[in-house]
């Protein structure tokens, strides 16, 4: 009897996301109409005033982004249940440069990893013989290409920009890690790192059931949506203000293509800023609309998300200052090149 009830409960857990999925899609596809209905018919705001356009933007974008976020985080949560830092380490152990850098950057996207585990992860990788440059590729890709950033880029800019961000982010992680590996900077790693003896952990080989993977997806949604929704709402509110009130082409003079210094300036400005993707991207989208160029905006975003000051400070525990500067320098140069490249193409 008891096991029957719990079995049904398990089934329900799988069924609920499947049933909610079409509802979400329907809502997503009709969101524009629903927003129109709400703003113009129900509340009766006059169209085309700055206030109305700001409110419309907010009412439309918040549910849209949150819907997308829920779906993508759920899917990514399931995908990530197939990966673990221990497995990634095993795959990367003793890999040669370049091939190792490519693999590490891609694994950086799918391996579940939080920035507070950066040090144990670094130690674990180095100790088991993952080359320094390969480890860096992982550490650069993991924060830069995250599901929240991709969702927001997809939702606010479209799939092309999201794909572009992902591929250039990967490229920066691969090349920066490769360069760090080639420069042979092992002597700038704190010497105690090489004295670490990691214990052997019997990795549990038990199979994870599909229901548990669904659970992992649900857990990811609860954890991530809980953490970022407030940033998204605030970010979109600021974006909505810019959308309604900042005049067209306002940004063109200092974040446009013609200002050559705008790309390095954007990176310099972005690095010390500590914000997650959730807060920064809606603002960035609004800037772009007002005449900022894509390359500049992309560089700014990568500077904020990919090179964050607090994370770099954490790394000081295992890296000598010199290596930190080299690491930040190489990644920053990579971001600047990407910025110029996009300004050139678009």
């Amino acid at each position, binding site marked *: 009897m008891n096991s029957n009830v719990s079995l049904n409960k398990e089934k329900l857990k799988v069924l609920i996301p499947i049933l909610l999925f079409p509802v979400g899609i329907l809502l997503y596809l009709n969101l524009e109409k629903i927003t129109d209905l709400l703003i113009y018919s129900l509340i009766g705001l006059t169209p085309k005033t700055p206030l109305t356009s700001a409110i419309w933007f907010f009412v439309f974008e918040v549910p849209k982004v949150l819907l997308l976020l829920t779906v993508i985080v759920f899917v990514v949560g399931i995908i990530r249940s197939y990966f673990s830092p221990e497995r990634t380490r095993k795959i990367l152990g003793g890999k040669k440069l370049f091939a190792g850098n490519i693999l590490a950057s891609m694994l950086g996207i799918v391996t579940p990893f939080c920035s*507070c585990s950066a040090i144990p992860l670094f130690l674990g990788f180095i100790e088991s013989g993952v080359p320094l440059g390969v480890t860096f590729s992982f550490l650069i890709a993991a924060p830069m290409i995250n599901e929240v950033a991709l969702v927001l880029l997809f939702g606010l800019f479209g799939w092309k920009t999201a794909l572009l961000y992902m591929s250039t982010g990967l490229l920066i992680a691969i090349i920066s890690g490769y360069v760090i590996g080639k420069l042979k900077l092992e002597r700038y790693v704190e010497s105690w790192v090489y004295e670490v003896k990691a214990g052997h952990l019997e990795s549990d080989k038990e199979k994870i059931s599909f229901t548990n993977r669904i659970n992992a997806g649900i857990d990811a949604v609860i954890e991530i949506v809980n953490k970022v929704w407030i940033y998204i709402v605030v970010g979109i509110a600021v974006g909505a203000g810019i959308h309604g009130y900042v005049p067209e082409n306002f940004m063109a003079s200092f974040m446009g293509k013609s200002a050559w210094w705008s790309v390095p300036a954007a990176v310099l400005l972005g690095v010390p800023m500590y914000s997650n993707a959730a807060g920064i991207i809606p603002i960035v989208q609004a800037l772009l609309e007002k005449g900022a160029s894509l390359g500049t905006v992309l560089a700014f975003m990568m500077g904020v998300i990919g090179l964050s000051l607090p994370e770099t400070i954490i790394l000081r525990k295992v890296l000598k200052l010199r290596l930190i500067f080299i690491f930040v320098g190489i990644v920053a140069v990579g971001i600047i090149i990407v910025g110029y490249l996009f300004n050139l193409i678009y």
Partner: protein
Amino acid sequence: MLNIKVLGSGCANCINLEKLCHEVVSENGIEAEIEKVTDYKDIMSYGIMTTPGLVVNGMVIHSGKLPTKSTLTHWLMSELSKQ
């Protein structure tokens, strides 16, 4: 008697896990000593790569995530029943 070690250098989840351990132990009347391990070398000696880590009587039970209260209670109870 359980020996519980919480491995972590002081991130939010590590602090929360320690708190949760104290809660579960006192609510269920479990006899236990709870220690915090913050030194990276010591943390690494348990073979984990993600924090927080939970070690009970020398065995790594879990790492990388904050467990729910009921899960933690279940783990501690089953470790207790092994004795």
